[in-house]
């Protein structure tokens, strides 16, 4: 078997609706078993996750899953400025990635990390039967809550500055009034703010026939998912959905500045993919 770091990959520019999208493609090593589209997290988190997503993509390719890591419009090496991006464009990007993978054999998995999990679920709804599985890493279930935390980066940045502090409420009001705001090095447009506030994994998410694997970090020594996640998944199962929660131990790499790896998450993901295949 090829060493993980030696897994072959190719760089491509795909046709997106608003311009070229950059993708790293890891073709299946050996007999192909399926295809995976990786949908990254929001803004700075996507940088912090980059190494882990690369590790996941390599491991999946080694198990026979052709995997495409896609930079969404306005991010990474894809066309556009972050400020011009919105949810609709990103959903189109997911579809472009799916279309690009179309020629590969086997079932399609949408692999969404953090906010990418909501994009994956939204995309799966519009893709109908084309997406058979969702593989979700540390999903954000409530975009509004995530955006409040994101706005807090700006509050946290001014910790040492003197004078009155901004509040997330004021920042939201400025966005609602049509102003773009710089937060953590990214320009957030009023449209993006509204889109994030509306994004969620709803209790009435209806994805019949789609297997959902939800992987969530728990502290060492614990084995239960967070209360809100467990409740959401239980609700989905009651509605007959094929949804499963899986805890993993490891560092919260999506929020750490230093490079930390969570190999247990990668291994668990590969095992789940093989199980359900």
């Amino acid at each position, binding site marked *: 078997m090829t060493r993980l770091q030696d897994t072959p990959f190719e760089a491509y520019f795909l046709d997106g609706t608003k311009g070229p999208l950059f993708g790293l493609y890891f073709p299946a090593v050996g007999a192909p078993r399926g295809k995976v589209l990786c949908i990254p997290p929001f803004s*700075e988190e996507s940088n*912090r996750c980059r190494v882990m997503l690369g590790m996941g993509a390599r491991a999946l390719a080694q198990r026979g899953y052709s995997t495409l890591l896609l930079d969404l419009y306005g991010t990474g090496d894809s066309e556009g400025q972050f400020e011009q991006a919105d949810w609709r464009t990103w959903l189109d990007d997911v579809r472009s990635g799916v279309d690009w993978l179309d020629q590969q054999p086997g079932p399609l998995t949408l692999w969404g990390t953090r906010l990418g999990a909501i994009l994956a679920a939204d995309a799966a709804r519009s893709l109908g039967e084309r997406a058979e599985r969702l593989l979700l890493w540390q999903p954000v279930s409530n975009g509004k809550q995530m955006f409040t*935390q*994101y706005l*807090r*980066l700006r*509050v*946290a*940045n001014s*910790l*040492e500055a003197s004078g009155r*502090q*901004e*509040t*997330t*409420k004021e920042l939201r009001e400025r966005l609602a009034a049509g102003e773009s705001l710089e937060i*953590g090095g990214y320009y957030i447009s009023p449209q993006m703010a509204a889109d994030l506030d509306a994004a969620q994994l709803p209790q009435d998410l209806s994805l019949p026939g789609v297997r959902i694997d939800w992987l969530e970090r728990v*502290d*060492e020594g614990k084995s239960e998912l*967070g209360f809100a996640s467990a409740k959401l998944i239980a609700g989905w199962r009651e509605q007959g959905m094929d949804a499963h929660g899986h805890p993993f131990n490891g*560092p*919260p790499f999506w*929020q*750490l*500045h*230093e490079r*930390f790896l969570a190999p247990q998450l990668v291994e668990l993901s590969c095992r789940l993919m093989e199980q359900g295949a």
Partner: protein
Amino acid sequence: MSEAIEFVKDLFRNQLQMGERADALTADSPIVGAIPEFDSVAVVSLVTAIEEQLGVEIEDDEITGELFETVGSLADFVAEKMG
């Protein structure tokens, strides 16, 4: 109070992956400017973890420089939130 200190040390251990360096923290240990992992993302992740683990809400105006001055100042805040 010692319960709150342990809570804060656990936060640093788990949220910031400080490992054994978290064991050595005391109430007098400075945070801002002293712990390299402590950036704005870290502030937000700590605040979020406190909210989630204690089931409380933290207001924006409670997130101040004084709060993150030392492990002790953060523990005082946590103790207050623990009720």
